[in-house]
């Protein structure tokens, strides 16, 4: 049967949409019509199912609104454009900030700044009205600045500066963005952009979908530029490099030695094998130089702190060697402390200086690296407040680093400050460094043993991992009133003022940044809380949904998965028929549920099903043989058919009569026919009814109406299937359904679709009487889903509840309407138990699973199968954002193309997981 599926895919070549109007030839694709018994309507759409899968960005054509523009721009394109602008800006800011972190000051004319300026320019020019620029008569965004000045006078400074430098260095590239550069230099760029995003005067200049008018994004450029505005820029003319007053000695030194490769770039040179007389020295030099370069801020790590002339005490306890101490943070937020002997630094930066091999080796050995994630304690020993101090690191294994000697001054404090800020957000120092009224960091009071005297003091800091629930303690404001707080005089000479990456160093600009960061943190915190709350809320809601709607779906909550049970085969079945024990019945239904009946041989499987199905449906008791009942069934069936044959004959006679009567009226006067209310087709009304005949008349009418409906449907029932291409089988089907309707004459009568349910049974049993018995049992449950009963709404409602619990993303797609109409794609599933969705062998397999599950665990297996149908295609459904019409089309197109085995597995899984949820609820 699976060959059918593959054959289907070639049949599925949809006739391409013809646009020519007058191709009137009738096209008959016999292959296409006989290929499969699936709904032929499904092969005739304008796009095939593969379209759904191949192109998720398919233009939307199926809106159920009235005549609608299909070529409207998708709402997201402008959003994408804006997001790109912001992303670029973000990236440029990030690059510049990283660069600035490793450099005392940034050249205003450097490439970093220019790229940032261009990104800013693109943001402010986005969506600007062309006419505006035309009016002003300027082609650049400088025109905007002139407008800004009207409402924001302090921007005049930027205009002045721009004019000033226009004349001075006209040689610089991209003069278009000069004003942006100047605004950055004067630290006004962020405020100017903020003005542009908020002022009504500026909004006039933009189209509706401009970035600066975007509700969510308009504030972002200003916010992003806060950081760059805090950088100290330098205008570096070719002769002014000597003016650089950098406090980061190492950086300066690198700059002073042009032999180290490119001076402007902080990246290590790609090739270092330029000089050197011997291979050995060349190697050593290159490695040592690489090492030294790694100390510098680069793309892999950020330099948080650097200080030379920090002493390292020899392990022997002798005099200390001077070296360069640096603190690095890499991209995974790991901190590394490095100490490099001064000599090694010099030798590597001056490759030509003669250093002997051995000396170099010795110094090389001395260099130390401490990974901060290994450190648990830091000892600080300070003799006096302003005097030199010693820092030792203790690792988690108990090892101790050689003591580091900081020169007098506040150097150790500055180092700790940098370390503390580097540790955030994952770790913190315990106790934290306190902050005094000047917002300078100070050593904590607590651990200070002797605060009043000038004797030496010891501090021990623990490194504590932060959990998200315990935010670092806020800056201690109360130290202001404390006399004993160690007052560290503000030292403007401290070189770290120029390091914007260190948040500890606060200037007025940094202050601004800090308040914004604080706000951002708070709002993030709120969002996290809100999310947690909503998560909890939806969990509770789910439980309620489960409790209220899904509790009753499962009657047996103790079931263990037995995916590897064998199917019911002939050997097992003959054991069953010979013993008929309750244990075998139990095993039989479990086998059917988990593995089905038969082993894939079409005819044998049919024969097995013919025997087992009546037991599954409850037509026979497990303990009884089919024999006595089947004879009864056959006799009763024969009688019933004979009985309604009479009715049928009467109906036929009347049809004939009516037809002839209508023909006879051919020549009737047209006047009567023109009257609007007249029933133009009406047969002659018979007025001679007496009450006894009335009952008979009603019966004939009722049966006649049903008969016509049945015939209409039988004629169209699975004609592509070989079994029903045989007219005799079709007649069998008609007789079965007619007998059913005759027996249930007080029921609903024949409703479209009923014939579809009888057909697979007839194919299996090939016995009208037995088919009818099984059909009757089956219909007892199925008729609830037919119109005018409550079953369908219950199914749709349950499906919706299940989806809500299992896949909220699909649920949000399905819950766009308050009623169940959005779920109508599943109407036919529930009406016919997937009979139209699957090929016949699939129907057999799914039906017996449904019946076995009814005995085993739940009477609602169709629900879980429906859920599997949805979740199986969830990605396609979600990525196409399918609406009502799309879903109907999609599932109609998928007819008979489903992977039944896979769907069954996933349906059983869904059932198992709901079962375990219910178990925990009990």
């Amino acid at each position, binding site marked *: 049967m699976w060959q059918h599926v593959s054959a289907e895919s070639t049949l599925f070549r949809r006739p391409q949409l*013809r*646009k020519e*109007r*007058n*191709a*009137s030839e*009738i*096209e*008959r*694709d016999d292959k296409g*019509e006989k290929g499969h018994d699936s*709904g*032929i*309507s499904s092969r*005739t759409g*304008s796009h095939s199912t593969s379209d759904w899968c191949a192109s998720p960005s398919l233009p939307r*054509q*199926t809106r*159920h*609104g*009235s*005549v*609608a*523009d*299909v*070529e409207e721009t998708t709402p997201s394109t402008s959003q994408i454009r804006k997001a790109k602008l912001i992303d670029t800006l973000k990236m440029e800011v990030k690059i510049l900030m990283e660069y600035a972190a490793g450099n005392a000051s940034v050249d205003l004319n450097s490439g970093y700044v220019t790229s940032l300026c261009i990104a800013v320019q693109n943001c402010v020019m986005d969506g600007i009205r062309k006419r505006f620029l035309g009016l002003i008569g300027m082609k650049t965004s400088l025109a905007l600045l002139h407008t800004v000045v*009207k409402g924001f006078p302090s921007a005049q400074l930027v205009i002045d500066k721009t004019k000033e430098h226009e004349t001075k260095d006209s040689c610089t590239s991209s003069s278009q963005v000069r004003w942006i550069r100047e605004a950055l230099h004067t630290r006004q760029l962020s405020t100017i952009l903020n003005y542009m995003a908020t002022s009504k005067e500026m909004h*006039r200049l933009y189209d509706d979908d401009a970035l600066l008018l975007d509700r969510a994004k308009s504030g972002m450029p200003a916010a992003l530029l806060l950081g760059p505005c805090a950088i100290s820029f330098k205008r570096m003319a070719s002769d002014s490099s000597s003016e650089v007053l950098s406090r980061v000695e190492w950086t300066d030194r690198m700059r002073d030695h042009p032999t180290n490769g490119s001076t402007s770039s902080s990246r290590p040179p790609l090739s270092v094998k330029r000089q050197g007389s011997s291979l050995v020295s060349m190697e050593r030099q290159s490695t040592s130089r690489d090492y030294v370069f790694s100390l510098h801020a680069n793309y892999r790590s950020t330099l948080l702190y650097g200080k030379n002339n920090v002493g390292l005490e020899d392990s022997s306890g002798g005099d200390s060697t001077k070296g360069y101490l640096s603190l690095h943070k890499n991209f995974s937020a790991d901190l590394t402390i490095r100490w490099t002997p001064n000599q090694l630094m010099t030798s590597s930066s001056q490759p030509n200086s003669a250093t002997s091999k051995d000396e170099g080796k010795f110094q090389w050995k001395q260099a130390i690296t401490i990974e901060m994630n290994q450190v648990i304690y830091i000892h600080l020993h300070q003799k006096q407040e302003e005097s030199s101090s010693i820092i030792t690191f203790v690792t988690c294994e108990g090892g101790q680093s050689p003591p580091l000697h900081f020169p007098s001054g506040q150097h150790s404090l500055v180092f700790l400050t940098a370390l503390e800020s580097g540790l955030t957000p994952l770790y913190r120092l315990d106790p934290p460094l306190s902050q005094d009224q000047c917002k300078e960091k100070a050593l904590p009071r607590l651990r200070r043993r002797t605060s009043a005297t000038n004797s030496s003091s010891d501090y021990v800091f623990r490194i504590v991992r932060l959990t998200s629930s315990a935010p670092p303690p806020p800056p201690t404001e109360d130290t202001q009133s404390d006399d004993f707080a160690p007052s560290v005089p503000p030292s403007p000479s401290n070189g770290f003022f120029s390091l914007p990456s260190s948040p500890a160093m606060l200037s007025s600009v940094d202050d601004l940044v800090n308040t914004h960061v604080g706000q951002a943190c708070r709002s993030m915190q709120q969002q996290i809380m809100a999310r947690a709350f909503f998560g909890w809320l939806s969990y509770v809601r789910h439980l309620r949904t489960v409790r209220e709607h899904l509790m009753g779906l499962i009657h047996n909550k103790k079931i263990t998965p037995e995916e590897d049970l064998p199917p019911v085969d002939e050997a097992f079945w003959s054991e069953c028929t010979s013993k008929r024990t309750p244990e075998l019945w139990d095993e039989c239904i479990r086998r059917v549920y988990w593995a089905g009946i038969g082993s894939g041989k079409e005819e044998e499987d049919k024969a097995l099903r013919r025997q087992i199905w009546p037991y599954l449906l409850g037509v026979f008791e497990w303990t009884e043989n089919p024999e006595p009942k089947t004879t009864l069934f056959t006799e009763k069936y024969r009688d019933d058919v004979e009985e309604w044959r009479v009715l049928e004959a009467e109906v036929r006679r009347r049809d004939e009569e009516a037809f002839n009567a*209508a023909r006879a009226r*051919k020549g009737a006067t*047209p006047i009567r*026919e*023109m009257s*609007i209310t007249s*029933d*133009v*087709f009406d047969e002659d009304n018979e007025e001679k009814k007496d009450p006894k005949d009335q009952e008979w008349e009603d019966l004939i009418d009722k049966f006649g109406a049903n008969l016509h*409906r049945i015939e*209409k449907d039988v004629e*169209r*029932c699975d*004609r592509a299937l070989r079994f029903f291409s045989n007219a005799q089988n079709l007649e069998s089907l008609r007789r079965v359904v007619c007998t059913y309707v005759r027996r249930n004459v007080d029921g609903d009568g024949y*409703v*479209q*679709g009923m014939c*579809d349910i009888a057909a697979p049974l007839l194919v299996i049993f090939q016995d009208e009487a037995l088919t009818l018995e099984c059909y009757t049992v089956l219909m007892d449950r199925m008729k609830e889903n037919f*119109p*005018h009963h409550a079953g369908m709404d219950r199914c749709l409602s349950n499906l919706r509840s299940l989806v809500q619990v299992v896949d909220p993303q699909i649920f949000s797609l399905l819950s766009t309407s308050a*009623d169940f*109409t959005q779920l*109508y*794609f599943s*109407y036919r599933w529930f*009406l*016919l138990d997937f009979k*139209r969705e699957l090929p016949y062998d699939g129907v057999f397999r799914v039906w017996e699973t449904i019946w076995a599950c009814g005995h085993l665990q739940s009477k609602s297996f169709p629900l879980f199968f429906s859920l599997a149908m949805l979740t199986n295609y969830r990605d396609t459904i979600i990525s196409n954002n399918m609406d*009502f*019409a799309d879903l*109907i*089309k999609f599932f109609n197109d998928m007819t008979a193309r489903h992977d039944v085995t896979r769907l069954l597995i996933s349906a059983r899984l869904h059932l198992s997981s709901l079962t375990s949820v219910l178990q925990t609820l009990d």
Partner: protein
Amino acid sequence: MSGTRRKALLKVIILGDSGVGKTSLMNQYVNRRFSNQYKATIGADFLTKDVMIDDRLVTMQIWDTAGQERFQSLGVAFYRGADCCVLAFDVTNAVSFKSLDSWRDEFLIQASPRDPEHFPFVLLGNKIDMEANRAVSAKRHVTMAQSWCAAKGGMPYYEVSAKEAVNVEAAFQAIARDALARESADTSDFPELENNINLNENNRSSSSGGCNC
């Protein structure tokens, strides 16, 4: 917004008793094919077809629903936003003609279009290839149907055969044209706003404000 170059979507619903040939008509029109193996429609399905009406490209979305009156309650979901309704009956089946009134009323109730009086309906009498089985003679029949149409606000009537592709193309073309004509009549009710006016006023007020400073 010239309107003529827009690609439009026309939602068309086919209604009529079970077995009158709705599914066959839809497939004949969209795929130019007839088969006696179409199954009875359960629920609903639709096909789409792109057509050029004058110089306008129109996508017709044709919805085919189940014909048994029991399934009419589903209609509300499918009829929503329809631009045109095609009523179909079987010329060999008198009952299917009698049901037309109820189909039309049901549609107007469930779809509740903005202007029910002028909502475009089209009537199709199908299976004219079965001349011998006609309940009434062809000539007389046309008169009946036409008088019914005249009573319902003059809806167009076509005699068609899905089986032999008689008149199907022409009928659906006319359906698209009708619905489109109505659509453009609708849009012409709302003339475009001059969007310059506001801007000019703003400019003026702002410049005068500048003088006052």
